């Protein structure tokens, strides 16, 4: 192995692989260092992979990549203890080219993606942890790995290490000790189930997929969501909650939240007869725009989850990771042409993000996290109220409808005043609008 490269990329997730692919295609001398035995074996995602941002890296990837199902229906469930109010969208068009999004399993997808990157000319080394930086004075000139004689030198380093960004923290780009209200912990189970059963239960044609997001009692009213996604012959069933709220909820374990969600009368029949195949856990960066680290310094760039580029509200993360990896690569290519890897030159990366949906979206939602965290009733009271109201409305018991409506309103306002409800609606509209 030559010990000097143009670029070192730490981490073979979607952000690092996207950057690696673009750089290798341009003929740059690039090395990707991954700690897992294969790319993807340390990674977890719900996971919905969006077609358009992925295709910007690898055209028509779905023809060759191990994708699970093309999503044609996306549902939202407002969950109360024993009932659920559902909302959804289905479109036949999403089931045919060019598609909208797919479910993927990361251990399979990342591995495939990495093969494309290697074919394009990048060097990938696995089973290797990057532990620190190499310095020449105060200048970063490479990385130290856990291997013997494992120092690697390069002009520039792209940190694509994911949410637990030890290196970005070490180098002072991210704060050491990200606040626990800026992170969610998610657990997930893979439940195997025959194809036909999945298609029957979710009302799908062959190869089509569906997603369900659950809000409300499924996370015990904590800020967080649950999800059920269909794979080829398994379901990805999981939930995530804010770490800070979990800490407060003394004694509650993430697995108990997942088991609680699985036992809901609307969820249980979907999983019936399925067999658990794997249990996974991962964090999600929820801090958004306000918690973003500094994105670059001399010779270093941060991409993907390590840069907090994730939009929890729209469960978008992989697309931001891919896009940021692409922008980082473009910036590095320009820097290479000038032979200048200073912060000034690398700031182009930030400008690219600012002009794209990535920072526009994160900016737009920058207050949502704070508002939701302070207003827990968005995750407890409202899902409950909507369920209770519909239950009353749908119960036929010879009570005139007008009286029913009054009853519903009285019930709702006995728990939260009219003034508070109006305030909530306004707040919700302000931060989301």
């Amino acid at each position: 192995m030559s010990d000097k490269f143009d670029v070192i990329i730490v981490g073979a997730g979607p952000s690092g692989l996207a950057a690696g692919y673009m750089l290798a295609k341009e003929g740059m001398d690039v090395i990707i260092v991954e700690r897992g035995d294969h790319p993807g074996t340390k990674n977890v995602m719900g996971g919905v992979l969006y077609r358009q941002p992925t295709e910007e890296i690898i055209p028509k990837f779905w023809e060759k990549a191990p994708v699970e199902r093309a999503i044609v229906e996306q549902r939202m469930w407002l969950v109360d203890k024993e009932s659920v109010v559902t909302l959804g969208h289905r479109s036949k068009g999403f089931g045919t080219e060019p598609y909208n999004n797919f479910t993927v399993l990361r251990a399979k997808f990342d591995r495939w993606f990495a093969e494309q990157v290697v074919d394009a000319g990048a060097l990938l080394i696995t089973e290797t942890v990057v532990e620190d930086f190499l310095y020449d004075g105060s200048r970063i000139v490479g990385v130290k790995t856990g291997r013997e004689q494992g120092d690697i030198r390069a002009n520039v380093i792209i940190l694509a290490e994911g949410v637990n960004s030890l290196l970005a923290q070490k180098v002072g780009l991210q704060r050491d000790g990200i606040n626990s209200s800026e992170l969610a912990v998610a657990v997930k189970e893979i439940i195997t189930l025959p194809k036909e059963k999945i298609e029957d239960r979710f009302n799908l044609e062959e190869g089509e997929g569906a997603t369900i997001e659950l809000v409300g009692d499924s996370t015990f009213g904590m800020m967080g969501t649950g999800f059920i996604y269909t794979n080829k012959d398994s379901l990805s069933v999981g939930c995530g909650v804010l770490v800070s709220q979990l800490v407060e909820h003394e004694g509650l374990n993430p697995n108990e939240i997942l088991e609680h969600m699985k036992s809901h009368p609307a969820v249980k029949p979907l999983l019936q007869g399925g067999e658990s195949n794997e249990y996974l856990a991962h964090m999600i960066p929820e801090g958004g725009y306000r918690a973003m680290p500094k994105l670059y310094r001399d010779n270093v760039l941060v991409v993907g989850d390590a840069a907090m580029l994730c939009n929890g509200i729209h469960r978008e993360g992989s697309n931001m990771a891919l896009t940021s990896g692409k922008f980082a690569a473009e910036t590095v290519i320009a820097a290479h042409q000038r032979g200048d890897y200073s912060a000034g030159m690398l700031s182009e990366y930030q400008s690219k993000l600012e002009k794209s949906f990535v920072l526009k979206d994160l900016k737009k939602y920058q207050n949502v996290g704070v508002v939701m965290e302070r207003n827990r009733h968005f995750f407890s009271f409202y899902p409950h109220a909507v369920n209770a109201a519909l239950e009353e409305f749908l119960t036929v018991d010879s009570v005139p409808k007008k009286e029913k409506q009054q009853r519903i309103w009285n019930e709702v306002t006995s728990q939260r005043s009219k003034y508070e409800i109006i305030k909530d609606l306004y707040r919700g509209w302000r931060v989301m609008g």
Partner: protein
Amino acid sequence: MTIEDKLFLNRFQADKHSHLKIRDRDVCRSCERKPCTYICPAKVYAWDEKEERIDTAYEGCLECGTCRYGCAHDNIDWRNPRGGFGIMYKNG
């Protein structure tokens, strides 16, 4: 299903040495709620009453990092397991 049953489904390559270290045992003694004992999805941490210390069953760690940020006193020295060791997801 219990966590133990679930961890049994997973593929691990356990190292001989723990990648999770408690920095200062005294801090744990006075840590009131000991969140590490309940927030960890793999129940890696348990309070040993007799020894008055936190035990870490690091072999089942899923490497999510939650304990590092949820520890009430930033008392966990969290490292990545050595290359090639730790959790190896089949699906992800």
